[in-house]
């Protein structure tokens, strides 16, 4: 068993055992294929996304945790957020440049939940249509320009 799988297995176990509030992992799918996880997320009560349900997809390489996972929103409901593009790509620094092996799926989920929760106005990123037309399928290939550090 490779170190990446070992770590992913441990993370899956802990996530299933002690999930953060509003976050559940599709354990069967993840245990079938450890490199592709689907995580269900609920809008935190008291925020703009209260009552909404989102789906997050995590893709891992065999260099995890040194390589960051590829995280995107999937499904019918993609949150309308200034850092979330309509194709599900998320503009979040810890997913690319600020990734650290000390981070985990749980911490990434918490970051996204906090990102959504801190949103004050539901709107798409200003360059949404252009980006969606021109971007690569893999969000990690995008050279992100983190223009807003507030959220």
């Amino acid at each position, binding site marked *: 068993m490779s170190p990446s799988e*070992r770590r992913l297995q441990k993370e899956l176990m802990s996530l299933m055992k002690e999930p953060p509030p509003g976050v559940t992992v599709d354990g069967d799918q993840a245990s079938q294929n450890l490199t592709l996880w689907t995580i269900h997320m609920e809008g935190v009560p008291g925020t703009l996304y209260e009552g909404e349900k989102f789906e997050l997809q995590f893709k891992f390489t065999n260099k995890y945790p040194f390589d960051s996972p590829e995280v995107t929103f999937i499904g019918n409901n993609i949150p309308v957020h200034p850092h979330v593009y309509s194709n599900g790509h998320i503009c979040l620094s810890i997913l690319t440049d600020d990734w*650290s092996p*000390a981070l985990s799926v749980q911490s990434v989920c918490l970051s996204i939940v906090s990102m959504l929760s801190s949103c004050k106005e539901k709107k798409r990123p200003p360059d949404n249509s252009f980006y969606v037309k021109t971007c690569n399928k893999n969000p990690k290939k995008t050279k992100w320009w983190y223009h807003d550090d507030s959220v």
Partner: protein
Amino acid sequence: MHLLCTICSDLLNQTENIIVIKCGHLFHYHCIKQWISRSKSCPQCRINVTERCIFRLYPTISNDVTVEDVTTLQSRLDDLQLQLRQEKTKCKEKDNQIKEFILNMKKIEDSLQSSEKKLVEKTSAVIALKDQLKYVQIQNKEVHKLKSENEALNKYVKTSTELNKVLNACYDEVEKMIQDYDDIRTLATFATALKRALCDSEKKKNHYRDQGHLLKQKLASEKARVETLQSNLDHMMSLNVTLTSHDVPKLSKFESRAEPEIADSFKREVVAPVPLVNSIEKSDSPYLSLKQSSLPLTALQRRPNQQLLDKNLKPSEFALFNSIKTTCQNFKEQEKESIFHKKEKPDVNLLKENVTDMNTSYDGLGGHSKLDIFPKPSTSNMTRIPKLSAKHKLKRPNSQDISELPINKYFKKI
């Protein structure tokens, strides 16, 4: 106390290489080394890290094995659970594989059964085909036999046709054909056939020659007889003339006497040729040209509109036609009896008629006015008619023609 490496989330054991960064965070050496090759920062506090500010730790941990704390047990449990999960998944996979194998087995068994069935069918078919093959072979042998027979027959037919050619074709053709031939046997057969044909033709030739001689002799004898008869006839004629000129009243008496004489003489004449007639008819002498020339004449005779035609004819044509007619009629009688026999009887009648005619002519010589004399010969004719045979009855309507016969003319001239 249990320490965790945040990079691999495993426990830090004293047996492993444990390092500390200047910020105080602990990692496995191999973990932090991999990370530093990518980013020279602490994974936990993002402080700048260089190779120089990494230090190895050598902790001393009590070897109290009896005391097992909860965290190690928990981690072990986690590991075991993880292993269990993995094993379960493997088991599932294996189960699925087994199911697939079973399905495949079933399919293979089915296919095996079907193929066995097919095999049985094929074997039966093969047996049937073998039988057919045997039958065909037998037939083939028969066909070969027939072929050889056919070839032999063809050869036979060829040789026979060529033999035919040799026998019937003209000299040059046969010469060419024989030159083209190489086979000695066929040539020999040709030669023998030709020899045989030659012998046959020689025999025939001899036979015909003999026949010719015989016929010639017969002809000579006939000629002699004819001459004698002619002389006889002449003699009779002269006698007749003298008789008529000198003693007319005696004629009636003479008639009765002369008749049998003449009849006798003619009888002799008639009797003599009869045996010859047949031989002449059968022979190929040119004297029998009458027979051949009669063919168109008979055709003319058969025409039903003959009488109508006669009326439309010119006098010259009519005479010609009439002469043809008479010959035809003569020939009719010839067919029934013979040429000679036929010729005689009208002569006999004519003689009598002529005698009466002579009578009138003698009386008249310009005695046409004496009409009372004419009935006499007619009555005599009438009286004679019942005596005549049925054959002569048929001839009656043509009595005018008889008056035109050459002999009659001859008498008139005299």
